[in-house]
């Protein structure tokens, strides 16, 4: 399973971002900042891989700043995170 994890510099941005993405029908999920990821505040949003680009664009267009985007892969040994940028999808 793969999904896009969006991190934020400020907790309030994560809260606003969740509302924004939910209103857009992107069904964001919440998770704490994983220990493997160094950037961002303590809360992250997860969206489906295919919604990653749209989610980031929506956040940017509404002035919600992001600290970073990562791809989370869930394998037998747990979750791994790879830095993601729009061109990699």
């Amino acid at each position: 399973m793969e999904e896009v994890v969006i991190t934020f510099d400020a907790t309030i941005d994560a809260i606003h971002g969740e509302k924004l993405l939910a209103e857009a029908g992107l069904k964001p999920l919440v998770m704490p900042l994983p220990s493997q990821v160094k950037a961002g505040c303590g809360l992250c949003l997860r969206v489906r891989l295919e919604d990653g680009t749209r989610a980031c664009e929506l956040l940017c267009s509404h002035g919600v700043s992001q600290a970073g985007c990562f791809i989370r892969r869930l394998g037998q040994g747990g979750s791994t995170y790879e830095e993601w940028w729009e061109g990699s999808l």
Partner: protein
Amino acid sequence: MKHLDMLGQPCPIPVIQARRAMQAGEDRVTVDVDNEVAVQNLEKMAQGEGYRFAWEGLGEGRFRVELHKNGMQGDQSPKSAVEGTAQLTEFEAVNAYCGPRPGMTVLIGQDHLGEGAEELGRMLIKGFLFSLTELPIPPRQVIFLNGGAHLTTEGANTVPDLRTLEQKGTEIYTCGTCANFFGIKEKLAVGTITDMMNIVRMLAEAADVVSI
């Protein structure tokens, strides 16, 4: 005869599914599992409920268990090794045949975590529930009551993570009285409805309880 492919399924799922199949009227059920503990627990269940039991190795760590209601080769059906176990509820049967599973019991009585900023607390509880899915030993049970009942119903974005927990063997319960109070009993999206007697019994039998 019914065959159950329980490869990759942790206990107590093979025991629960096999018991349900036998109780539904099957005379013979075969169960494929991939760990010896499941074989042992299925044998305990067979003894407890009075079924014939046999198993064979399939190689590569896989086993096939056979349960029969009737005796084989002229043998008489064994009597229940544990008096009255066929009358056990599913919850009691899991405890009797699989033993208390490891993992804490988590009691969640609100839809947010902590006090001070409720908006933040609503995010924190979601992060908390996700984190439970990452534990090497997932919780044995997560019980939701009062405002926590909103987290298990349609529309809550905590449901996918709770389903992940359920797939890992965690039992998810929602207080029926609470769901009824909020008018969301019909919208339950994960786990099962339970009552206060059962909640208290689970807490009394739990090795560790974390209350939120």
